[in-house]
């Protein structure tokens, strides 16, 4: 089995072995074995659904810490637009930028500006008529991984755009390199992340051979320190700040609002995304040109590494987005176009192909997979169909999958076990009632 890097990890001592997470996982990647959840690395897409579900906080998002800034001479924080939705105090964007600098950063560059760049590149990209329809936004890395694992047939539909995070990192790096004349490897760029999927995308990049971001800090990890600095009243400007539309990318429907009028569909929440991708995969959405798909409900403001309620956060995000005045909005959008002219449009496209990821197959070759599928169907037909999860697999069907792949046995099902026990008890009774040759025949049965 392939072992890919994941930022979602299980904290064994906190896991109570309940079956809540296995039920919510969109790729059926989790099993409970020997009282603890086990995540299948080949299937996990780092969506963070289990982090949200776990009541014992046994699922954690592994991120960098502020100590990692020590490895560089100059550090740039690139906050996700969603960060601005997490601050309850009446703090404007400039106060939040200043508070980030107090954590040890030399400069801040808003990812909302990267979003403005990607909006413009995407707008031009969609016009190419040779591309398959509908195109699927690649902005949410959990959705891209979902396509790789569950919908490989839709890989050609992914818009080959870099993420706003990468775009922001690249323009910020270029500017600091030029201004301060320091080597690229001495510059540390850290993403302030609302989710696990983005952190994974930094360590194992999507559609790019190298990562332009050196690490990520989870919003929830720095929240306390950020709030402590915020009361002190400092203000600072970022290297680049996005428009209100760029900030809007953090909310469901925000990317489409930025792109403007077209035949498009927006979907949020990983299970809803699966429903829409099923439709697209069956060729039933050919009249839609573009799909914005976000793994988290309400969009990135609902990310699992955030602290706020997603719906409360969305209202704040709307305020931040509307608070950027029209004058600076036009200036940001112009600046984004200038950046595209300076670097070239292709600079912000993905340069490496997205590959399908194995993980759902029953066997490596077709013949054994067919044999296993036949066996699987036979087992499923005999299972109760309650999908209770007591066996440690999320559904009766996945339990049967695990049995045919040698990862479980049929009597891991409590109902099967009960059947077996009943049969054994009956056998035992029959044996106990058997006459012995040396004894007189009994008449009681």
């Amino acid at each position, binding site marked *: 089995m392939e072992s890919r890097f994941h930022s979602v990890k299980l904290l064994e001592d906190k896991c109570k072995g309940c079956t809540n997470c296995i039920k919510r996982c969109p790729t059926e990647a989790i099993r409970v074995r020997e009282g603890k959840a086990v995540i299948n690395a080949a299937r996990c897409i780092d969506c963070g659904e289990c982090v949200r579900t776990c009541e014992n906080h046994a699922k954690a998002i592994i991120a960098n810490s502020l100590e990692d800034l020590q490895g560089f001479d100059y550090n740039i924080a690139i906050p996700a637009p969603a960060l601005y939705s997490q601050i309850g105090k009446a703090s404007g964007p400039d106060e939040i930028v200043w508070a980030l600098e107090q954590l040890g950063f030399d400069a801040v560059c808003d990812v909302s500006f990267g979003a403005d760049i990607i909006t413009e590149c995407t707008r031009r990209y969609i016009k190419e008529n040779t591309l398959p329809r509908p195109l699927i936004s690649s902005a949410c890395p959990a959705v891209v991984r979902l396509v790789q694992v569950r919908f490989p*047939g839709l890989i050609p539909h992914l818009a080959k755009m870099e993420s706003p995070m990468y775009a922001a990192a690249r323009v910020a790096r270029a500017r600091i390199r030029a201004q301060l004349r320091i080597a690229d490897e001495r510059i540390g760029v850290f993403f302030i992340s609302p989710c696990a999927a983005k952190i994974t995308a930094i360590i194992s990049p999507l559609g790019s051979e190298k990562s332009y971001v050196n690490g990520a800090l989870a919003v929830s990890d720095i929240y306390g320190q950020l709030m402590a600095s915020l009361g002190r009243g400092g203000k600072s400007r970022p290297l680049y700040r996005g428009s209100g539309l760029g900030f809007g990318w953090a909310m469901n429907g925000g990317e489409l609002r930025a792109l403007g009028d077209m035949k498009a569909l927006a979907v949020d929440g990983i299970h809803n995304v699966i429903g829409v991708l099923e439709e697209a995969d*069956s*060729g039933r959405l050919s009249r839609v040109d573009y799909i914005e798909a976000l793994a988290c409900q309400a969009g990135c403001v609902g990310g699992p590494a955030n602290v706020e309620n997603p719906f409360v956060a969305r209202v704040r995000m709307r305020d931040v987005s509307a608070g950027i005045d029209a004058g600076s909005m036009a200036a940001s959008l112009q600046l984004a176009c200038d950046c595209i002219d300076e670097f070239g449009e292709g600079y912000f496209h993905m340069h490496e192909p997205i590959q399908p990821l194995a993980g759902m*197959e*029953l*066997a490596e070759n077709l*013949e054994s997979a067919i*044999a296993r599928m036949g066996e699987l*169907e036979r087992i499923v037909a005999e299972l109760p169909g309650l999908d209770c999860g007591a066996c440690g697999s999320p559904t009766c069907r996945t339990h049967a999958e695990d049995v045919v792949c040698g990862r479980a046995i049929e009597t891991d099902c409590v109902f099967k076990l009960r059947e077996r026990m009943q049969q054994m008890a009956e056998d035992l009774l029959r044996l106990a009632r058997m006459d012995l040759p040396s004894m007189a025949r009994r008449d009681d049965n």
Partner: protein
Amino acid sequence: MTARDEHALEMDFTVARHDFAAAGEAASRVKQVLRQLGIASDLVRRAAVATYEAEMNLVIHSSGGKVVLRVDSERIVVEACDLGPGIPDIELAMREGYSTASDEVREMGFGAGMGLPNMQRCSDSFKIDSSVGRGTTVTAVIYITEPGS
């Protein structure tokens, strides 16, 4: 489902007349099964589209029937069989845009007369057997390896 031998898989799905809400379920299951068998995604898609069209035909036109999926190491077979009413003129039924669907069905956005041609487009070999009053069997075959290779 019945497995004829362990190198071949056979599954069937019952489709009821005018059950539009359930239409598409066989196609989804076929897609899931083929994906778990590790079949290439373009073949999975073709088989899923053929199944969907077969299912829709049963829902719209037949008095009910079943879709059968058969897979072995060489091919995927999608077969739709029903017990009536049968197709009087197969050549006409295969013509793009020709449909005998009712106005009611058309108002639901179906019955564009593309089902059978679309099914044929997805298959490497395609066959219709039909007789009026007795029923129809539509068979779509998709080769996993080139035949004879």
